[in-house]
């Protein structure tokens, strides 16, 4: 399996959880410890090692928060 690197432009995340829902590895979560300027808990990957770089999260993110790289 390919490995992935997923980065979030946290400031513009709206916490909608679409990325969370479509990640096949279930490794995305909202970061309850943060609130961004828009007032949302931004999404982040909790276990990057499991990421398979499928791009689903990025494809589904309506706000282009996510960049996915294959390592």
């Amino acid at each position, binding site marked *: 399996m390919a490995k992935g690197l997923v980065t979030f432009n946290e400031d513009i995340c*709206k916490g909608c959880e679409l990325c969370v829902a479509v990640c096949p590895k279930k490794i995305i979560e909202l970061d309850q410890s943060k609130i961004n300027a*828009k*007032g*949302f808990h931004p999404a982040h990957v909790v276990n990057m090692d499991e990421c398979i770089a499928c791009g689903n999260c990025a494809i589904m993110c309506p706000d282009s928060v996510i960049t996915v790289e294959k390592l």
Partner: protein
Amino acid sequence: MIEKVIVAGFGGQGVMALGKLLAYGGMLDDRQVSWLPSYGPEMRGGTANCDVIVSDTLIGSPVLTDDATAVIVMNLPSMDKFESHLAPNGKLIINKSLIEKKATRDDIEAYYIDANEIAMEIGNAKAANMVMLGAFLELTKIVKPESIIKAFTKVFGEDKAKFIPLNELALQRGAEAVKEQMAVS
């Protein structure tokens, strides 16, 4: 007696509801009232604010520009925008839970309420707006808290009656929180 209040915050923080309860309560207290909402372009997640006037005499314009007697701000952008709308000696009631900044004007009275924390304490984060309203009522005495409670089912419907005790408590806690500051300030 007249209070001209701007209530402002994120959509979802219940600022419109706060304003409506205040206006409805004022009406039950036989005052003249007006409530005027204003929304941003966003349907959700944007900012929202309303102007409320409660008065003993006929209300002219329902719009508040720079003549507000009180401003209740639930988040930072609202404070940045509306502090300047206060008339001299006006009251700025700040949701300290989300706003770290202090009031910048010194010709006004500022009060800092840990609204979100207090609301969490009494069991519902959504009640932060009622905490703020409690503080405002304590400061101005423009509407009786009982009238706000009477207004509750009128504004939200009979099926929301079960939330009354929680909201009553929130009003009280807000009042208490501001009383401490009235003492110190």
